C-alpha cells in the first residue's frame, strides 16, 4: 500500500470515527434541550417632537421543538398559538388591532417602529400558509374564525371571499400562499387586549405589562396592538420546528401637561417632563420572573441628538449615582448603560439608547423612569421620502375617483442616490390597494400627475398587476411599482370608479354611514429603515428588531364612500303596490265581464224620471260626476248634451297636454 493510498484511508477511518461520535454528541444535546422556550419583554420609550411620548412594548416568545411529535407539551409558549400554527399550517402571520392613525409627519415615517408598527385603523390580518394552493382559502377561513374567537373580535368577517385578497408582490416581497384582509371599522378596546395579554406567561400580573393601565393606554392618540408569528418546520417532516411569537403594543400618549412652561427666550415650548407614573398611572412593581430579559429603553431620536449637539450639549452625559444630568434634561434612575447608534454614513446624526435593566431596580422599590427637561428643544423626526395621502373626488351617488397624493419631503434630495435606474435618478415606490367590489374601479383610467402635469402611465410604471373585482365574489386589487424622477415635488395617482349596488341583504347595519375603502399601502423598496447599535443585538429582541432592514412603509387614510342606500322596507312596498294594481285591474276586468250595460242604463233612466226633486237631482249629478259618467237628463236633452261634449272635449285636450308634458320631460 503506497502512502498516497494510506492517507485517504486514514481520513476515512477518522470520518467513520466522527460518524460514530458526532451523532452521540448531537443526541446528547438534543436530549438536554429537547425543547427550548424563551420569553423576553422590553419597553421602548421615545419622546416625540410634538410633546407626546411613544411607548412600544415588545414581548417575544420563542419555542424550539426538536422532536416534534404531534401533541406537544408546552412550558411557556401559549398553547392556543401553538395549536393554531399546527392546525392551520401558518408559516407567518400578523394580526393588528389599531385605533387612531399614525401621524407620519410628526411621529416619523422612516424608522423601524413606524414601518412595522404603524398600522391601518381597525383590524389588519395577513397570513402565509405552508399548504398547497388549493387548501389555502379553506385554511384562511378557519383561521379567521379561530382568531375571532381567540381575540373577541369580528375577524370572522374576513372569511367571506369579498373581503380578502391574495397579493402577489405588492404587499410583501415574496409571493406564495399569502392572504391579506382588513376590517377598517373594527372597534378596538380592552376586550381585545385581555386575550392578547393572556398569551404572555406573566399576563399583566408582573413585569412590563403591569404598566398597561387600560384607561391610560386607550386614552392615547394612537394605539396599535400587534401579534406577529413566524414558524418553521411544521409543514414538512423535518425533525425540529420553531415558532417565534412577537407581540407588540405601540401607544402614543400625551404626558399630563401640568408642568409645562413656555420658554419665552426661544419662543418654543418646553418639552413636557414625564415619568412612567404620569403617563401610565402605574409603576413596575415586580419583574416577570419567567422573562429571560426584561429591559426598558429610552431612545433619543437622531434629530434630537443632533439638535442638542448643535446647542452645544455633549451627548456623553455626566453620570451620578442616582440620576444622570446634562444641561438639557435629567434622567432618574441612572441607566444601566448608554448605547450609540452605529451609522457609517454620518457620525453626527446617531440616535442614543439608554438601557434600564429592570431586575436591577425592582427588588428595592417600584421602578419608575423620570425624564425632566430643562431646556426647550425642537426637532423633527426622520421622514419617508414621500408623504402619502389619499382622498375621494367627485360627488353624487353614481361615480367618483380615488386619488393618492404623494408629496415630497423638502429634504428628500439628500436621500436620492438610492434608486439609480438607468442613468436617471429615480425614486421607486410600490402601491398596494384593495378595493371592495361595490366600488367598481376602472383601472384603465389610471392617470399619473407629476408636478401637476399628466404623464403617460407607461413612463412611470415599472410593473403593474391588477386583479379586477368580481361582483359579490372578490375584491379588486392593484399592485403598482412606480419609478418617479428625483426632481419630483408632488405626484398624484387617480382612478375613476362607479358605485355599485348591493343586494338588499348585503347592506350592513347602519348602511347610511357609508362604506370603507381599506388603506392603501405605499412602500419604498429602496429605503430601508434600520438602526443598528453598537451593542450586540442578538441579546435583545428589540435591538435585533430595530436592526432588521425593512422597507419604509406608509398606510394612507381609510376612505368613506357613501353608497346609495335603499329604503329597506322597499321590497314590501313594491310587493304591496304591485299587488294592489293587479288586484284593481283584475277586479275591474271581472266586473266589466259581468256587467249588463243596457239594463243599467234603463234603470238609470227610470230613476231619473221618477225622482225630479231638486236636491235629489243635484246629488245624483254629483254622484254621476264622481262616477265619471255624464248625467243623462230627460226633460231638456239639448243643453246637457252640449255640456257633455264640452267636458269630453276638455278632458281629451287635457289628456293630450298631459301626455305631451310627460313625453317632454320624462320619457325623453
Amino acid at each position: 500500500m503506497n502512502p498516497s493510498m494510506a492517507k485517504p484511508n486514514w481520513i476515512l477511518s477518522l470520518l467513520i470515527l466522527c460518524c460514530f461520535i458526532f451523532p452521540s454528541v448531537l443526541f446528547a444535546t438534543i436530549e438536554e434541550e429537547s425543547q427550548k422556550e424563551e420569553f423576553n419583554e422590553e419597553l421602548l420609550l421615545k419622546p416625540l417632537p410634538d410633546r407626546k411620548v411613544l411607548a412600544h412594548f415588545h414581548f417575544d416568545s420563542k419555542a424550539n421543538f426538536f422532536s416534534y411529535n404531534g401533541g406537544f407539551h408546552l412550558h411557556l409558549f401559549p398553547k392556543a398559538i401553538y395549536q393554531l400554527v399546527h392546525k392551520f399550517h401558518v408559516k407567518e402571520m400578523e394580526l393588528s388591532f389599531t385605533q387612531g392613525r399614525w401621524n407620519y409627519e410628526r411621529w416619523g415615517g422612516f424608522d423601524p417602529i413606524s414601518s412595522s408598527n404603524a398600522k391601518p385603523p381597525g383590524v389588519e390580518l395577513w397570513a402565509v400558509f405552508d399548504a398547497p394552493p388549493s387548501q389555502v382559502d379553506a385554511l384562511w377561513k378557519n383561521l379567521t374564525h379561530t382568531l375571532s374567537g381567540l381575540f373577541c373580535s369580528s375577524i370572522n368577517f374576513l372569511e367571506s371571499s369579498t373581503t380578502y385578497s391574495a397579493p402577489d408582490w405588492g404587499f410583501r416581497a415574496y409571493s406564495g400562499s399569502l392572504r391579506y384582509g382588513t376590517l377598517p371599522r373594527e372597534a378596538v378596546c380592552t376586550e381585545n387586549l385581555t386575550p392578547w395579554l393572556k398569551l404572555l406567561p406573566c399576563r399583566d400580573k408582573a413585569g412590563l405589562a403591569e404598566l398597561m393601565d387600560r384607561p391610560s393606554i386607550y386614552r392615547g392618540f394612537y394605539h396599535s396592538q400587534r401579534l406577529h408569528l413566524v414558524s418553521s418546520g411544521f409543514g414538512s417532516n423535518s425533525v425540529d420546528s420553531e415558532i417565534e411569537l412577537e407581540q407588540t403594543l405601540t401607544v402614543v400618549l400625551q404626558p399630563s401637561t401640568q408642568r409645562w412652561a413656555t420658554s419665552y427666550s426661544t419662543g418654543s415650548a418646553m418639552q413636557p417632563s414625564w415619568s412612567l407614573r404620569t403617563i401610565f398611572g402605574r409603576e413596575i412593581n415586580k419583574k416577570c420572573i419567567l422573562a429571560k430579559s426584561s429591559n426598558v429603553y429610552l431612545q433619543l431620536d437622531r434629530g434630537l441628538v443632533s439638535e442638542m449637539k448643535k446647542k452645544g450639549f455633549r451627548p456623553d452625559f455626566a453620570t451620578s449615582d442616582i440620576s444622570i444630568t446634562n444641561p438639557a434634561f435629567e434622567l432618574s434612575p441612572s441607566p444601566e448603560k448608554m448605547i450609540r447608534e452605529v451609522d457609517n454614513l454620518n457620525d453626527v446624526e446617531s440616535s442614543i439608547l439608554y438601557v434600564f435593566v429592570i431586575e436591577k431596580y425592582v427588588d428595592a422599590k417600584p421602578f419608575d423612569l423620570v425624564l425632566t427637561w430643562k431646556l426647550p428643544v425642537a426637532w423633527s423626526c426622520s421622514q419617508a421620502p414621500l408623504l402619502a395621502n389619499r382622498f375621494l373626488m367627485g360627488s353624487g351617488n353614481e361615480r367618483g375617483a380615488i386619488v393618492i397624493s404623494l408629496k415630497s419631503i423638502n429634504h428628500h434630495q439628500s436621500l436620492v442616490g438610492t434608486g439609480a435606474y438607468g442613468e436617471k435618478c429615480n425614486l421607486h415606490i410600490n402601491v398596494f390597494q384593495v378595493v371592495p367590489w361595490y366600488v367598481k374601479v376602472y383601472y384603465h383610467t389610471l392617470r399619473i400627475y407629476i408636478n401637476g402635469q399628466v404623464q403617460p402611465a407607461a413612463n412611470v410604471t415599472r410593473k403593474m398587476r391588477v386583479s379586477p373585482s368580481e361582483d359579490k365574489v372578490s375584491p379588486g386589487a392593484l399592485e403598482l411599482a412606480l419609478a418617479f424622477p428625483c426632481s419630483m415635488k408632488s405626484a398624484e395617482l387617480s382612478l375613476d370608479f362607479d358605485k355599485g349596488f348591493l343586494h338588499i341583504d348585503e347592506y350592513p347595519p347602519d348602511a347610511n354611514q357609508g362604506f370603507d375603502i381599506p388603506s392603501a399601502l405605499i412602500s419604498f423598496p429602496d429605503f430601508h429603515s434600520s438602526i443598528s447599535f453598537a451593542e450586540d443585538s442578538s441579546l435583545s429582541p428589540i435591538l435585533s428588531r430595530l436592526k432588521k432592514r425593512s422597507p419604509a412603509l406608509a398606510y394612507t387614510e381609510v376612505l368613506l364612500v357613501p353608497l346609495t342606500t335603499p329604503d329597506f322596507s322597499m321590497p314590501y312596498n313594491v310587493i304591496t303596490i304591485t299587488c294592489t294594481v293587479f288586484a284593481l285591474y283584475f277586479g275591474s276586468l271581472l266586473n266589466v265581464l259581468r256587467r249588463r250595460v243596457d239594463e243599467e242604463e234603463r234603470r238609470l233612466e227610470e230613476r231619473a224620471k221618477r225622482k225630479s226633486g231638486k236636491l235629489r237631482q243635484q246629488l245624483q249629478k254629483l254622484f254621476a260626476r264622481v262616477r265619471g259618467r255624464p248625467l243623462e237628463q230627460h226633460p231638456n236633452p239639448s243643453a246637457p248634451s252640449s255640456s257633455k261634449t264640452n267636458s269630453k272635449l276638455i278632458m281629451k285636450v287635457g289628456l293630450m297636454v298631459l301626455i305631451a308634458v310627460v313625453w317632454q320631460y320624462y320619457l325623453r
Partner: protein
Amino acid sequence: MPEISRGENPPSEPSTKNSDKMAETSAGESESTPENQSELFDSSKMRKTKPGIKRLSLTLCVLFSFLLGFPFLLKSVEIYRSPLPFKYMDSLSSVIESEPLLFPCRFQAVFLGFNDELNDADKLGSLIADRMREVVGHDRACGSCRNNFTVSVSLELEKGCVQSENGENGCLWQCGLLKDADVATKWKDDDFVDELLDNALSGGQKCSGSNGKVYSIVVVEKDEEVRAVVGKHRHGWIIGKLSKEEAVERVAEIFVKVFINGGKEEGSIHGEFMPVGADGRVVLSFSLLNADPHDWIYNWDFQRVNEILVTPVVEALAPIANISVESQILYHTPKSFFSHWDDQRGAYIYDSKDLPFFVNSNEWHLDTSTAAGGRSKILHIVVYIPSERECPLLLQLPNGEISMTNGFISPMWGGIIVWNPSGCSGHSGTTTDGRHTIPFKDLENIVEVFMGQLRQLFGLKSEGLYVGSSDRVKLLASERGFSNWELDLLARQHTCFNLQSCATTLGSLSRLVQSLPRMIIKDEIGKQVEYSLQAANFAQSNASVGAYDDSAVLSRQARSLAEDSFFHPSIMSVSYYSFEHCFAVYSPFFLPVALHVLLAAVKEWKRYKQEKSKYLTWKAKEVVS
C-alpha cells in the same frame, strides 16, 4: 264597486218595484213584451225567457280556477324538506324508552378442592342463578344484564371433573390447570394468582369469540380465613373455608354487584354526569399551575408522563371515547379563597366548603382548545402548586381527617390535585432562579391520583375495595387504570346512555320538524339522521349478542350523528321564512282579488236563482193559462 251594487240593489228596493218591471226583463225580450199582457205579466216576479248562464259560468269559472290554482301556488312556494324517516325515528325513541337494552352476560363458577358431596354441577348452577335473580331484584338500570345471563359451573374434585350442561361450547374451565405444586403455596400473592388465572382462563376466553365475555370466579377450598379478590381481567377468586350455601351466596353477590353493577348502587349514567362529549371525544387538558412564580417555578416532564402513564389509559378507553391529551403550564394563578393555618398539623388547611371557590376562573386561563371543536368535552386536570405563603396546603375532609390524595373532582369539569413541594422550602438546594422540576416519583403519585379522579369522573369507584352485605371484596387495580371487567361495564353503560341520548335527540328532532312545517331541512340532515339510525340499529344488534366494545363505538357514532343533525346550522334559518312572511307577500294580491271573485260569484248565483224562479213562475202561469 259601483257596478255590483247597481246590479243588486233594484230588486230589493220596495219603492222601485213598479218601475223595475221593465228593467228586470232582459234586453232580448223587451220588444216582444206586448202591452195587452201587462196586467197578467208582472215583470218583477216573472220572465219569459230562460235566464242566461254566460256570466254565471264565467264567474264560477274564475272562482274554480282560483281554487284549483291554489294548490299549485302552495306547491310553488314550498320550501325544500329532505324526507326524514319520522316513523323510524319515533319508533327508535319509543323502543329505547320502553325497554332498556339487555346485554347478555355469561358467568362461570369454578369450585376447586371441594369434597365429593358437591357433585351436581347443574344443580349448583341453578342455585347460583336463582340467588343472582334474587340479588338483582327489580333493578331496571340500563346497561346491566338483569336476568339475561347464563351461569355454568365446573367442579374440580379429587376424583374427577364435573361440568354443568350449559357450558355447551366447551369454552369453559379445563380441569387440572392449577394442579402444580407451587400454586398451592402462592394463593396469598394476588398479582401472581391473577396472572395465573388469566392464563388458565384465556383459553376459554378465546373460544368465546365475539359472543360475549365470560366472567369467572374460582372458589378454592382451604383452611383459612375467607378472602375474596377480583382481578384485573374478568375473573375473581374466593379462598377459604366455605360451606356450599356460603359459596353460592358470595359467588352470586360478586357476579351481580361487582361484575354487573361495578360495585355501585346507582346503575346507569345520569345525563349531567356524562364525561364524554356529544361527538364522542374527550380532551384531557393537563395544566400545571404555579400560583406564584416569585416563590418557585415548577416544571414537569409531561412528555414522559404521557408516554408512560397516560397513553395506556387513553388506549384502554378507546371504545368509549376518543381521547386526546394536551398540557400547559400557567403562572400567576392564585386560588380565590384563603386557607387557614393549623398549628397542630403544621399546614394550611382548606376544607370542603372552600372547594367551590378553588377554581379561580378570572385568573386561571385554562382555555379551550382548538382540538376541542364543536361539541367535544374538555376535562381539565389541574395540578396546583401553592405559593410559599400557604405551603403546605392540605384538604380537610368533612370528617376532620386530612385527605390522602389532596385533590378533588368537579363532575363534568375535571379534577384538581394540590401538590406541595417537598419541605415547602423552595430555596434549599435549588438553582438560583427558583426553577425546579417535579421529580418523576411525585409525578407518578400525581398520575395515580389523577387515575382515581378519572375513574370517578367516569362513574367508577376510586378505591380498590367493595364492601358488600356479606363480605368485603378486594378489587385489584390495573396499571391501565381500568380493569377489563370495568371497561366492559363502562362500555355497556355508555352504549346504553348513548343510545338513549340518540333516541331522545332524534325523537325531539322529529317532533320539532313535524311541528314546524316551514322549516328548511337540508339533505345533509336527512343523511345524518339516516346514518345515525343505522348506527343505532347496529349498536343494538351488537349489544344483543354481547359485543360490548363494538356496540359502544357504534352507539357513540349514533349519538354524535344525531346531535350533528339536531344542531345543524341550517335549522337556525327557520325564522327567516316564516308563515308570516309568506302571508305578508301574498296577501296584498290575493285578499282583494278573492273578495272580487267571491262576491261576483255569489251575486251571479243569487241573481241566477232569482231569475230562474221568475221564469218558472211565468212558465207555470203560462201552463195554467
